[in-house]
């Protein structure tokens, strides 16, 4: 197992515990560090506090939904560099478009198998790490 500090931290934001925990468990299984948030407010708090490498954001959530949360994160200089991968159960194109305009880097439509999700996450993190490295 690699050192905990070296592994990328993924903040999984979902109000649906089964989904949140499933992705969390699989991410841990795949070697990621995982933090969880149940809604948008919590997600912003944790993002500021933990500075995750990536936020996996469900869009339909109570209190503050994924769109609003992403907008706020991207508006905050402290968190705006953290990539956000949005997950939506809505297959309608409007959702992914509005998510992108809110600042989401990638939009993934559910259902998304854990295996496929990890691929996408690795791709995004790899991109940012490469950017960092070149920078």
């Amino acid at each position: 197992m690699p050192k905990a500090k070296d592994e990328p931290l993924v903040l999984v934001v979902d109000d649906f515990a089964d989904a949140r925990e499933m992705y969390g468990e699989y991410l841990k299984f795949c070697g990621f560090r995982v933090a969880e948030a149940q809604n948008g407010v919590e997600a912003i708090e944790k993002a500021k506090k933990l500075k995750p490498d990536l936020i996996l954001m469900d869009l339909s959530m109570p209190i503050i939904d994924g769109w609003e949360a992403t907008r706020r994160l991207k508006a905050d200089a402290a968190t705006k560099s953290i990539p956000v991968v949005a997950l939506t159960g809505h297959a309608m194109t409007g959702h992914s478009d509005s998510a992108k305009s809110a600042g989401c880097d990638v939009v993934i439509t559910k259902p998304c198998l854990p295996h496929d999700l990890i691929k996408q996450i690795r791709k995004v993190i790899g991109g940012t790490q490469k950017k960092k490295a070149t920078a």
Partner: protein
Amino acid sequence: MARESVAVATRFSGAADAKLALLEELQRCTDPVSAAQAAIDWLIAHTPARRGVFAATDNVRGTLGCIAGAGVNPKQLKRFCFSLDDPTHPLVNALTNGSVVSFHGARDSRVSLFGNEPFTAVKVARGEDDPALGLMLIGPALEPPHTTVRWVADALALSLSRMATREGLMEEDPRLRREHALLFNIINAATDPIMFTNMDGQLIIANARAELLFTAPDDVSEGRRRAVQLNNMFFSAALSRTTLGEGEAGRRELLLVDPTEGSDLLFELLSTVVSDPHEGAGIVSILRNITDLRQATRQIDENYARLRAAEGEIRAERDRLNLLIDSVADPIIVTDQEGEISLMNNPAERLFTVVAGAGEDAQRIVRANDAHFTSFVSGLLSTGWELTRRGEIALVDPNTGKAVPVEALAAKMLSDLGELTAIVTILHDRTEAIERAQLYEQLKLASEELEGKVQSATAELARQNELLRRQALELEQASAAKSQFLANVSHELRTPLNAILGYAAMTLQGVSGELMAPQRRNLSRIDANARHLLTLINEILDITRIEAGRMPIQVVAFNLPELLREVISELEPIIVKSGLELTTRLPSDLPTLRSDRQKVKQIVVNLLSNALKFTQKGNITIRVKTVGARAVTIEVIDTGIGIPKQDFEKIFEDFRQVDSTPRRAYGGTGLGLSICRRLASMLRGTLKVDSSLGKGSTFTLTLPLVLKK
């Protein structure tokens, strides 16, 4: 008188001229005395006689007395008078026996008028058997033949008998004389020439008018004398040509000359034979001037001819008029001032006359018609000032019994003086007009009804339209709601399905530790069914998107072979599992496509999945061909179960499979082909199927090489 005779004798040397002179002399004499004197004087002048007397018979007194004489003592002459009743008297004897008796030596004192000198007694009478007018005694006795003396006696007889009717008798009796004068005046007053001639044609009596034509005084012109001569000739000729019995009237025309004017005069000669006891038979001739009459007759003839011609013309005109009136189809009736029918044409006769042998009904109808008509016309007659009257009369055809409603127009015919001469009435059958009006009314009613229907139908249509519009709106709203609902549902379904699929995959991956074989198998089934459920949800979502118009087209350039490789690799596990041989045939010069890559791929995946699903054995071929320069076809050919021809279109409908029983052999929503066809249509292409049952199917997707937005 004697002097005159001498003068006459000296003027005419010839015997004939002397005789003519005597006749003229006698003609001029108006009394027997002068006539007798003239005759005696003429005898003394032209014969050896030296003295003579004339004794006239007086039938009233029954005596014979001397009235004229020459060479005799006048005293003796007056005494010479004796009774005719004495048969012994030699002169009475001479009067009755023979016409010329000579006495030689007077032994009887009763005849001693000339002393003892022998003398000749000549009977003066019209005819030998006629009663003697008198006796001419001439001395000395004349030697036979007594031709000259006889001629003179006859001439005198003629003259005397003429006078006898004119004067002679009247002198005897004053009353008779008056009558005679009256008669003479009457015949003189007659404007027609009247003449009495003896049977020999000698003129005995002529009235003034006749004398003008037939006698010429001495002092007249030669022309007039010639005219009179001609007239006498013509008259004698006319008479001689007329053979008459007693009491018979002959009629002939006689052309004479007017002696004073020389113009032609045409007379009608009427001759009647009369017999007079004294004068014997004679002829009364009346000449009627018909010169004017002839002209008048001619005029009348001409006028008559003209009248006839005019009448003919009028008749022709009337015939023409009748024909004209009869040929008019409308009944025409002419009535007089009293309202009685005086003329009608054939159509009118049909209504107002009874045909021979017609029944009582017909007669009753005709009477009723007549009454209606009469009351109509009398309505016009009773108004003095109105010239026409218009009205309707309900008549009945007596032949058919059918009602004939007519419009009657009556007009007064006035003479130049404004007097009513007739009333002309024309009846116009209104049956047709009424029927037409009724028909029009019906038509109008029907038209109104129709219009009402159309209006109500239009209103209904408008109402329906409004309803439809509202329904469409509602439907649209409902459709939108449905789409929204389905989208929501699919989202809600997706969330738990996401967890199912995720945990199944994780567990199978060994995240939760190694699995036992039965566990792995069962988990795999959960995974497979969850995936199928996901397909269903995705398909439903696709349909919903297409119907809601929320399926955007994203045109990109791509290569078909690469796309096909991708499809095949995605379905690789199923292909391998099916054990079927998959062949791909591509033309070498296939151009790049410009279309919605993702949708083309979705269609091809669907078609290939179907082919794999419905084919047990054999092979599957994917064949790509270009069609002209603008299109391309992608054919998916299998050797599967095939599709019945009647179901070729059905398979493209929503939720359809050929076998729609609940326990059908093949899975699937039945939405796949429906979605494919809709997608093909969105890409301006077509999706068609050809198949034979049990042998296989060929699905052909045709797409434009370049999809223009």
